[in-house]
């Protein structure tokens, strides 16, 4: 008998590839001998587009990079620009930013949990998690006017203040959320089928993770407690009390537990941000780079001229280069901006966590069963829009 291998095309249009990922699997029976990820189907040239936009216009592009965590992308970008300009946003803006990005983290993890469980044959959690995600989307819609593409962060602060109704909505959501997470855990954590599908699957050690550049929940599940919110606190994260959940084995099950715990921590951070919301402005006082208040634009000629100049020409940051990264739901999300002192960046590089994390797929699936490959793809929590940009 001779051993024969078969090439199997997984994707690009397959529900378990979470978008348009194509993986060519070389199979020997049910064992994966080799895997070749093929990406780029969703490449839109966002980095190129950014070179033709002013700094304020780029904010809307960042939404489209990772549509499941648009606010994290907004935040990473505006923080990089603020670093380049050396301006500081007011405390209230920091807290609003933290509350929104942590809600976004919860929404992203909920979507991941639902689809991940669905990939592994558990259909029920999807309905539960999408229900809670919908509640977050409603909150976003009330505050920002949009569900998936809020473009809410501004250079120097946020686009608008949050009103008491939104604060009430967030409070209501947070109050019940912990019980909801208990429900998901009730469905999965001790479920023998779930455990047998996820325990010991797709193991990567922390050293391998670091060498592969893997960040976020994947790295933490393998035992390395690196979280940018703690190591380099931005946006007043050092005001909040929270823990970094870590795993020990670094398998699919650990990553599930880490993300579940992260959702609880995020809810706790949102609670602190909302209860401790400082009074004051939500965007820095008018200056060269900051858009004037909307109500002033209609009544004050200077504000109007400033507004027109910023919108039509754009602002001119000093020439130089900055890199700023935040902890997005998927890991280290960084923006590298090179400016020559003009109104448009010479280069805007996005350090996409999904793209780097996806490199680990081959390592996870080689020598394992085909069904484990599905678990490994969804455990990375990729967003193909971010992988391909």
């Amino acid at each position, binding site marked *: 008998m001779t051993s024969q291998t078969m090439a199997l095309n997984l994707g690009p249009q397959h529900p378990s590839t979470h978008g348009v990922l194509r993986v060519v699997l070389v199979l020997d029976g049910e064992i994966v001998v080799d895997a070749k990820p093929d990406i780029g189907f969703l490449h839109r040239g966002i980095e190129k587009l950014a070179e033709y936009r002013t700094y304020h216009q780029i904010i809307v592009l960042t939404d489209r990079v990772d549509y499941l965590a648009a606010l994290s992308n907004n935040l990473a970008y505006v923080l990089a620009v603020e670093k380049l300009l050396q301006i500081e946003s007011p405390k209230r803006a920091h807290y609003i930013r933290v509350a929104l990005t942590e809600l976004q983290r919860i929404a992203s993890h909920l979507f991941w949990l639902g689809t991940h469980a669905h990939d592994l044959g558990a259909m029920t959690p999807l309905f539960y998690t999408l229900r809670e995600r919908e509640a977050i989307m409603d909150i976003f819609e009330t505050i920002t006017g949009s569900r998936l593409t809020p473009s809410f962060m501004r250079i120097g602060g946020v686009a608008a203040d949050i009103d008491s109704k939104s604060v009430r909505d967030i409070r209501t959501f947070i109050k019940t959320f912990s019980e909801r997470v208990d429900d998901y855990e009730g469905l999965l954590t001790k479920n023998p089928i779930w455990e047998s599908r996820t325990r010991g699957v797709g193991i990567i050690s922390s050293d391998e993770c670091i*060498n*592969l550049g893997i960040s976020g929940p994947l790295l933490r599940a393998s035992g*390395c407690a*690196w979280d940018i919110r703690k190591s380099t606190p931005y946006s007043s994260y050092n005001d909040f009390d929270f823990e970094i959940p870590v795993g020990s084995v670094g398998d699919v099950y650990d990553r599930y537990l880490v993300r579940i715990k992260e959702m609880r921590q995020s809810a706790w951070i949102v609670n602190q941000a909302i209860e401790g919301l400082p009074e004051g402005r939500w965007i820095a006082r008018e200056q060269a780079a900051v858009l004037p208040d909307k109500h002033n634009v209609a009544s004050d000629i200077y504000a109007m001229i400033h507004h027109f100049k910023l919108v039509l020409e754009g602002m001119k940051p000093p020439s130089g280069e900055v890199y700023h990264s935040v902890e997005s739901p998927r890991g280290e999300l960084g923006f*590298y901006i090179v400016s020559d002192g003009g109104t448009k960046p010479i280069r805007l*590089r996005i350090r996409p966590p999904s793209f780097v994390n996806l490199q680990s797929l081959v390592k996870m699936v080689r020598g394992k069963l085909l069904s484990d490959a599905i678990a490994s793809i969804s455990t990375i929590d990729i967003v193909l829009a971010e992988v391909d940009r």
Partner: protein
Amino acid sequence: MNVKILDEAFGYCITRVESFNNEITVVVDQWSILAVCDFLKNDSRFSFDFLSDCCGVDRFPESPRFWLVYHLYSITHNHRMRIKTTLDDAEPVADSVVSIWSSADWMERECYDMFGIKFRNHPDMRRILMPDDFQGFPLRKDFPLEGLE
């Protein structure tokens, strides 16, 4: 983090050290990238175990035209450094750092795909985002926004 240590060890190939907004950039010549990176990863005073990012920049019409930029991070020491080198206009080639950080694999492929910067000793030097038969390098400044056709 003391950049002087790096300067003592590799002074001959460091063009300059820049500091802007509390970020340290070390500009090295293109032939010593591999040696400098290897030192920065393995020397316990730096321990840059994590390659955050590697990307290209097109400075057209400046010459030399290309920058190759590495963003290093040390999980052990919690510090960052940027390593930068300039590459020639016509045939930009650099040494691959995949042997030091595996994460560089796809990042360098993206550099090649977008800027046409080739990497010596890279295990799989192919395009990554654009189709294999694609002509041109999209992130070069002379590549039009609308595409070539």
